């Protein structure tokens, strides 16, 4: 079974500072994707960033970047220059093409941004 673990139930960051959210996963598959999703109180799940497992280069999207350590099965999200609008629940997830790309989610990390 594929599993995703987020060990930080809650994190806080000062506005304009940098924060890193942790995620580890377990799989025996070789072809998979990893994701970070943001879920604000509106419940709408929004894709933040995606990483393909066969790509060694870490994905970046503006202020969001990942540190993908394939051997360690670690996939952390770094948010730079944090903004009040970044406050939300963040979920790490994996998907496997062999299984129709259904997503396996971690338990989530609540991110609070202090002004």
């Amino acid at each position, binding site marked *: 079974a594929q599993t*995703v673990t987020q060990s930080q139930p809650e994190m806080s960051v000062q506005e304009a500072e940098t924060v890193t959210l942790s995620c580890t996963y377990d799989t025996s598959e070789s072809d998979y994707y990893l994701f970070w999703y943001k879920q604000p109180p509106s*419940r*709408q*799940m929004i894709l933040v960033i995606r990483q393909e497992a066969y790509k060694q280069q870490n994905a970046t999207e503006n202020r969001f970047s990942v540190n993908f350590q394939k051997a360690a099965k670690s996939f952390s999200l770094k948010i730079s220059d944090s903004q009040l609008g970044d406050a939300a629940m963040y979920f790490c997830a994996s998907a496997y093409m062999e299984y*129709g790309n259904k*997503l396996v*989610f971690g338990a989530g990390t609540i991110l609070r941004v202090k002004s």
Partner: protein
Amino acid sequence: GAGVSQTPSNKVTEKGKYVELRCDPISGHTALYWYRQSLGQGPEFLIYFQGTGAADDSGLPNDRFFAVRPEGSVSTLKIQRTERGDSAVYLCASSPGTSGDDEQFFGPGTRLTVL
């Protein structure tokens, strides 16, 4: 263009009743997924459709849960003899296909409360 829509946004029912939750995917998306998100947890996979057929229903918790997608577009998740433990947010997502490059777009969810 319109995103994924779900109706109703909230549903309150009594234990033992039957409920239907509807998902309207993005036009042209062939893949449709249902997830269930219990309070304070990450979403869990229920079922996904490729076209009209259920390609994987391994996440449905028991035979009280059933989903259809008769014309390959709108999908309905049906729950018979509801129980208090069924209370959760039910999320629907659609994607152009099931390859690794196909992003899943989520709807806002239906919050089901079983009294």
